[in-house]
């Protein structure tokens, strides 16, 4: 439709654009600009060219933080997405599923900080439920300082992430299964397919597009993950759980290296955008073989 007046359009569109431009777009451009500066937050920023970027690629903690991020993403793809898919498979085909469907989604809506503090207590070496449980089943020797041991801290955090988000992906897959045409499934059943065959041969291939969205969400979520890491270990022990986001926050707010921190931010954003674009391409080239 043609607008009745230009002024009317302005009133409708301007507030959203203004707030968003002020608090997101402008700071986004500002962060890119700061990534080329040397600045401690006071005085005038100095132009630094690509120095911050060169330093970032030589910073062993930053480079290894990408390794931790990759470990976290790989683990969460299994304990969140694959787990969610399996749970949805059972939930969508059986009865009496109201309870697990509701119960498994609870952690998704709770504040991550609350969950992180709770699981920090579960993993506490003195009064934590984990060690108490191991003692109760007679495995004193398996007791650990879970979050204080470089070998167990990162897996522990990944596990907590799975505890939160398996239910989230379950809900996504469950909704996708519910949209599948019933006639296909019924005719497969008539042909003698059991639930297992039905799941792997019919249902999972038919929701491939949803699966790729779920994987992308899990990967981008992993790149941005901060809350659990900050609260449970803050990168420690010995940088063994340092991820790019926690390191970036330290660079800016502890070391006052605002230019350097900004370059880390830009690198991380580019990595995220490249993966997102790659996934979109990959999805659209495969679109024709998925039909609803």
């Amino acid at each position: 439709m043609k607008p009745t007046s230009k002024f009317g359009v302005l009133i409708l569109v301007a507030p959203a654009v203004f707030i968003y431009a002020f608090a997101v777009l402008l700071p986004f451009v500002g962060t890119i600009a700061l990534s080329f500066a040397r600045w401690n937050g006071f005085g005038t920023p100095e132009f630094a060219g690509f120095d911050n970027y060169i330093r970032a690629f030589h910073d062993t903690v930053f480079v290894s933080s990408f390794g931790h991020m990759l470990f976290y993403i790989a683990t969460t793809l299994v304990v969140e997405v694959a787990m969610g898919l399996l749970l949805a498979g059972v939930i969508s085909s059986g009865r009496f599923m109201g309870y697990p469907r509701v119960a498994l989604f609870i952690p998704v809506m709770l504040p991550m900080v609350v969950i992180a503090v709770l699981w920090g207590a579960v993993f506490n070496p003195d009064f934590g439920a984990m060690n108490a449980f191991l003692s109760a089943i007679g495995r004193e020797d398996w007791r650990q300082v879970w979050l204080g041991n470089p070998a167990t801290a990162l897996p522990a955090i990944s596990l907590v992430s799975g505890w939160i988000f398996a239910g989230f992906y379950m809900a996504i897959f469950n909704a996708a299964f519910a949209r599948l045409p019933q006639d296909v499934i019924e005719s497969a059943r008539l042909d003698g397919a059991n639930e297992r065959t039905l799941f792997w041969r019919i249902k999972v291939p038919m929701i491939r597009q949803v699966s790729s969205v779920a994987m992308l969400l899990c990967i981008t979520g992993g790149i941005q993950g901060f809350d659990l890491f900050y609260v449970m270990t803050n990168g420690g022990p010995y940088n063994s759980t340092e991820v790019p986001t926690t390191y970036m926050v330290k660079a800016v707010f502890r070391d006052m290296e605002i230019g350097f921190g900004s370059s880390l931010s830009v690198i991380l954003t580019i990595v995220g955008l490249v993966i997102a674009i790659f996934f979109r391409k990959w999805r659209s080239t495969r679109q024709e073989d998925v039909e609803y």
Partner: protein
Amino acid sequence: MNRKPTFSTLVVWFYATLNLLPMLWMFMSSLKTNAEIAKSPLGLPTTFDFSVFAEAWEMGGLGTYAINSAIVTFTATTITLTVSSMAGFALSKLNFRGRGVVMGIFTLGLLLPIQAYFIAQNELFELVYLKDTRWALIVPYTAMGIPLAVWLLKSYIDSLPKEIFESARVDGASDLAVYRLLMVPIIRPALVTVGIFSVLSSWNEFLLALLYVQDDALKTIPTGLLAFSSKYVTDYQMLFAALSMVTLPMIVLYVVFNRQIVTGLTQGSVKG
């Protein structure tokens, strides 16, 4: 269809129960004294003394944090829904110059993570004296919510037949009148979905709350709870009481509105 619970049904029931155990443990521990917690972490509570909850709420400051969260969340969500439904309506039904550009910048916003802009945002908020005020959270929560809200509301309005609007137009209504009198009632279901997503993201947001608000009297629940947990680092019972008080009301709300909340959170995250 299956009529009997199968083996996998039982496994999933067991798994769901296992998942609830940490929360059950938390609630149980909030009723145990520190000595009991230290002596047998998995033991059942022996007394039911709820006074520790009142103490956490008042002396621990949980009440203040909850009020701050409520103010920030309510304001941010109201502004997000208002400005996004206005923009979504204009972008969906009106042809105006610059529409493509506006759509473009909002689409960019769907892709940008918080890490892409919070460093300069911090400097900007410092510059305009927003830091350590409630607006330091309301403004970014609103701004971050806008691209998604516009996108979801626009797609909802796209699916409405344009005859409804054209007939109102014939009756002489201006665009603003159409928005106010016709649009808002029709898109209520979409507003609920977007609103739930917006409420939960504001209520749970941590990074910006951590960086922009140092004043304890203005902290929201996530940062407040963190301050609480370092203040009462040896008082386990208080910590568990605080955790229970934050989670239990949310769980009750979730069980009541579970369908809307699941839809709101999944749609909000998947965004097409």
